[in-house]
């Protein structure tokens, strides 16, 4: 029996997933644990592995289709097994799968009669099977002349006869050629008897693509995948939350001293170098535990006070940005935070994060300090209500005790959702962050 492939539910809040791409073609063999397709939730891109071994028989959805969780999106089974033409309809009033919805029952049953298979089996005599096997012909594509469409030896012989006259291509190659808009008949086949195989089509693709480039068209790229998620979420946040951004200069002298003092210790303990981002995470975490009114989510009309301080850190990845979360920052020391942050950001760039590692943040830090950026107005990562943008640290002349001194100054920007908190408490919170960074021993408290 063919096994269903489902749109997985990767988190408790996930309702739909976007199919980014299939990593296998119909007709390709699939092994257990092999990446089968890539999806995107509202938080993550993830490759989904196959749970079954067999042939990918059917793909019901294409890239960029939004598919409800638990919807059957394809089938894996044995070669030649019959699967429905239309994906099974999700029960419990779940949304209809995209695409045209035809009457599946009557039509497909007739087709089954004609296609000589039933229960996923091809009806063929042993002799027909033997010849088909010897000639590597796919019984599925042979029309049976016997009762109930049974394929007889004669049918296979006729099929092979007509096949001989036509240029040959494997089913997979045909499919790929169709998708790439290549006429496979023009390709030089590398298979037995000049049969065009999938590899021939793959070789042909770059050749044709470079041909297109010479025509110098504008490059057009559909907003898709993670880019689309980021886009949607930014629009959602920017146009629903009234953003107010406060900025403040932070004297980083003591923070730098502390970092230099702790570097060897942390490196011995974790093998990683303590960064300013780690210090920022801890400083913000400490401030948040003192300002529970900032450590909240806004969901619909409710403000939810979060028990733990979970700090998300925006990480730039290929064609987008994701926010891995360091959980329970209030309970963790700098070394633990350092190790965790390095691990998360590394895996974020490799797109290997688990969905739960991207969930549950109560506040986000966006650090552009590695660029010559002084300050910016970050957009809140909803349903959080505030975000801290971090600019570069630069030595600047400042007045200290009536004298001009050179101090390392970093500008931080706090964007907050004015629906939830007002300017004064937000300013107090930012002042607290500033105070902790300027007196980093506060973090020990």
């Amino acid at each position: 029996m063919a096994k269903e492939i489902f749109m997985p539910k990767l988190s408790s809040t996930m309702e739909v997933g976007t199919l980014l791409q299939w990593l296998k073609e119909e007709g390709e063999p699939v092994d257990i644990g092999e990446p089968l397709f890539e999806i995107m939730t509202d938080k993550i891109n993830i490759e989904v592995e196959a749970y079954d071994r067999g042939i990918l028989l059917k793909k019901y959805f294409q890239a960029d289709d939004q598919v409800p969780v638990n919807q059957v999106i394809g089938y894996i089974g044995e070669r030649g097994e019959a699967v429905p033409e239309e994906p099974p309809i999700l029960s419990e009033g779940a949304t209809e799968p995209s695409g045209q919805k035809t009457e599946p029952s009557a039509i497909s049953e007739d087709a089954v009669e004609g296609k000589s298979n039933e229960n996923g089996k091809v009806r063929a005599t042993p002799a027909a099977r033997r010849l088909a096997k010897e000639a590597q012909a796919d019984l599925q594509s042979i029309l049976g002349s016997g009762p109930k469409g049974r394929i007889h030896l004669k049918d296979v012989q006729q099929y092979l006869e007509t096949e001989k006259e036509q240029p040959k291509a494997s089913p997979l190659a045909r499919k790929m050629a169709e998708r790439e808009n290549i006429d496979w008949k023009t390709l030089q086949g590398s298979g037995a008897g000049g049969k065009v195989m999938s590899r021939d089509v793959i070789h042909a693709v770059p050749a044709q693509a470079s041909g297109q480039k010479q025509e110098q068209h504008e490059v057009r790229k559909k907003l898709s995948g993670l880019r689309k998620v980021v886009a949607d979420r930014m629009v959602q946040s920017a146009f629903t939350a009234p953003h107010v951004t406060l900025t403040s200069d932070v004297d980083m002298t003591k923070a730098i001293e502390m970092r230099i003092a702790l570097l060897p210790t942390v490196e011995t303990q974790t093998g990683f170098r303590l960064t300013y981002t780690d210090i920022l995470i801890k400083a913000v975490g400490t401030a948040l535990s003192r300002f529970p009114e900032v450590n909240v989510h806004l969901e619909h009309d409710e403000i939810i006070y979060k028990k733990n301080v979970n700090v998300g850190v925006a990480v730039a990845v290929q064609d987008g940005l994701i926010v891995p979360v360091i959980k329970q920052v209030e309970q963790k020391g700098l070394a633990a935070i350092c190790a965790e942050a390095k691990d998360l950001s590394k895996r974020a760039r490799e797109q290997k994060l688990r969905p739960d590692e991207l969930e549950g943040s109560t506040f986000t830090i966006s650090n552009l300090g590695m660029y010559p950026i002084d300050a910016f107005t970050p957009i809140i990562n909803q349903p959080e209500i505030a975000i801290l943008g971090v600019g570069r640290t630069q030595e600047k002349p400042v007045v200290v005790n009536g004298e001009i001194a050179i101090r390392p100054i970093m500008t931080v920007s706090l964007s907050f959702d004015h629906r939830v908190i007002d300017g004064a408490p937000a300013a107090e919170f930012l002042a607290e962050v500033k105070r902790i960074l300027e007196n980093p021993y506060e973090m020990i408290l």
Partner: protein
Amino acid sequence: MREITYLEAVREAMSQEMRKNQDVYLLGEDIGVYGGAFGVTRGMIEEFGPERVRNTPISEAAIAGAAVGSALTGMRPILELQFSDFITIAMDQLVNQAAKLRYMYGGKGKVPMVVRTPAGSGTGAAAQHSQSLEAWMAHIPGLKVVQPSTAYDAKGLLKAAIDDDNPVIFYEHKLLYKMKSHVPEEPYSIPLGKADMKREGKDVTIVATAMMVHKALEAAKELEKEGIDVEIVDPRTLVPLDEETIVESVKKTGRVVVVHEAVKRGGYGGEIASIIAESEAFDYLDAPIKRLGGLPVPIPYNPNLEKAAVPQVPDIIKAVKETVQFK
């Protein structure tokens, strides 16, 4: 070559052997002056005397028991059971004694006996005198089962059966007794377990036994007119069975119809069909294996119904056509 009947061929095989070998003798009901129920032994008592052509009481159990005992003690008895239906009465002697003793004595004893017995319907002899029970015998290890379909085969197979040191059940079809064919005058032996190709063809194999060989040949003639080239394999002996010839034929034609007169249900055709399905011929089958056999009813007395109860030429033609329909 001269032509003689099947009946004469059986008699000739026995007479020639009895002239040569003093240990061979006959026993059965009314086989003496009367010449047996079908006249097979007619004239033999005159040549060989009542010591070697022995009339017995009407007791198949006693005949079979006496034969087993004399065979064990060095004779080579040929017993005649008037109708193969009454083999049921001789069953204990055949199944529990004749078939077993050579094995149970570790080969120190042997049971060289032949049970000749007329079988089959078509003579208006009704339910108790018309059956084909060869599958019963074929099921018993230790018994050989022979079903000759021609006079030539009958003579050669009977010689082989007499020469065999094991009990052999030799089924003679009543309707075949009058049938003639070319038979050499000198003794000859046809090895048990060697099938005979009664007709060569390329489209479909018919495996037929006894009377059905002739019906199949008749059907083949009709089918030839429609361009269907039938091959007919006559196993001649059910035990041992020449599987190789059957399998090779089916590999060649890719289609097979198995025909016997015995009731299809539990009949030996099921065994043949299974052997084909299990063999390498399977990969060459291009149509389902078809079996034709008697209906699961007692053979009726009414001549029309009697015919309807067992496969006839039109039935075979129909079965073959169904099988080759998708040629």
